[in-house]
């Protein structure tokens, strides 16, 4: 191992939680290093339109919103590295952060790694990924001009993706496993009033069909057990997210679903000096504005921790 950098504050993740924590800690002169992880900007960058983030009366794309977060963070001097954390070990009062390319040591750590999109977990999904199956409507929607596509899921992302895809596709069918939706009423109304959108509930995707690219899917009704084959050229998967906490499981306590546990009303984890914020510890709200607020809490909890450490 070559030279090891010693940091004051390392922030894992560059979504709304991580960047807000970076703004606050940088503004307090703590010189944070942000390890951006596999997807800088977090889940929000796949959102075609964000219309409920306070301060933006006009809809803004998730990509642009996160670009603004980043510029604001940079203004206060936070530093960035495009690194993914593989493991963190506590040695005495120092945290050794192993990335794929080296090691960083830090006195404190804020975990804001968010959550990653779930996949359907059927063998044919990976076979057709990039050849009809996608997890990002904003990235790949334009490849499906005048084609019929499915959107799998019932949350805000799925419903927003379906509406977005009607810009390109001739027909969008929403396939959802339950007979109710988690998406908020405002998003549901947009989808319901869109003539290009059709609905299949409560159905699940059993198999994806095609030779070189997707040509259809086999669906199964969860109530009746009946199956049907449906023709389509694309399948967009938006069935929720799992917390990205694997690298920290030996460092902090998590619940059975992998969400990092924090003390009620704070961002303190089971390990002093380690704080968690945003979707990696939020099984309930999962909103950008909540994550941002949580990032602020983590920064303030961390500042207090450092203050007490220095006094003792």
């Amino acid at each position, binding site marked *: 191992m070559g030279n090891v950098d010693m940091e004051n504050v390392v922030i894992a993740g560059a979504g709304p939680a991580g960047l807000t924590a970076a703004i606050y800690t940088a503004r307090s002169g703590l010189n944070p290093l942000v390890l951006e992880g*596999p*997807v*800088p*900007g977090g*889940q929000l*960058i*796949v959102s075609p339109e964000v219309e409920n983030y306070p301060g933006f009366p006009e809809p803004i794309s998730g*990509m642009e919103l996160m670009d603004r977060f980043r510029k604001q963070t940079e203004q206060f001097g936070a530093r960035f590295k*495009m690194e*993914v954390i593989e493991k963190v070990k506590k040695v005495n009062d120092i945290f050794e952060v192993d990335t*794929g*390319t080296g090691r960083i040591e830090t006195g404190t750590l804020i975990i804001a790694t968010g959550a990653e999109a779930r996949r359907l977990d059927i063998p044919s999904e990976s076979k057709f*990924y*990039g*050849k*009809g*199956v*996608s*997890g*990002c409507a*904003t*990235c*790949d929607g334009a*490849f*499906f001009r005048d084609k019929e596509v499915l959107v799998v899921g019932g949350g805000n992302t799925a419903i927003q993706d379906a509406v977005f895809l009607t810009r390109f596709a001739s027909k969008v069918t929403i396939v959802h496993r339950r007979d109710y939706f988690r998406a908020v009423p405002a998003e549901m109304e947009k989808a319901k009033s869109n003539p290009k959108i059709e609905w299949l509930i409560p159905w699940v995707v059993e198999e994806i069909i095609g030779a*070189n*690219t997707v040509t259809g899917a086999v669906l199964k009704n969860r109530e009746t057990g009946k199956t049907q084959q449906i023709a389509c*050229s*694309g399948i967009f998967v938006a069935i929720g997210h799992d917390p990205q906490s694997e690298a920290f499981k030996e460092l902090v306590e998590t619940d059975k679903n992998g969400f990092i546990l924090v003390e009620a009303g704070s961002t303190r984890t089971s390990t002093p000096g380690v704080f968690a914020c945003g979707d990696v510890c939020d099984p309930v709200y999962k909103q950008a504005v909540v994550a941002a607020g949580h990032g602020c809490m983590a920064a303030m909890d961390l500042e207090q921790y450092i203050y007490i450490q220095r006094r003792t």
Partner: protein
Amino acid sequence: MLNTNLKHIETEQEVKEVLESNENVMICCGRMGPMCIPVFSVMEDLEQIYPHVTFRDQDFDIPAADIIRNLPECALFMGLPFTVYFKNAKVVAATSSIQNKDQVMEILDREFGK
């Protein structure tokens, strides 16, 4: 505009030059989005490990990207990024959409050796 630490290819001439002057080349053609950034990041990591491979990225939306976009090997692709592996200027592998480090290394090892 791609904001990565990789060398960018911006013109058709640069594509030709990089293919003519290097035996093993990996070009990732995409945007700064959630499917492409992880591949760019993997390439940055692997540049040190595979010194015998030339790694380049390219903005999907510039005219010079036609060379990659119009390759027969990419004709069925429907997911960003388009990643193409060349040996002696011939396509030996191509992938569509997000790939992880293991998937990229499997192709690099198979086509270009460790």
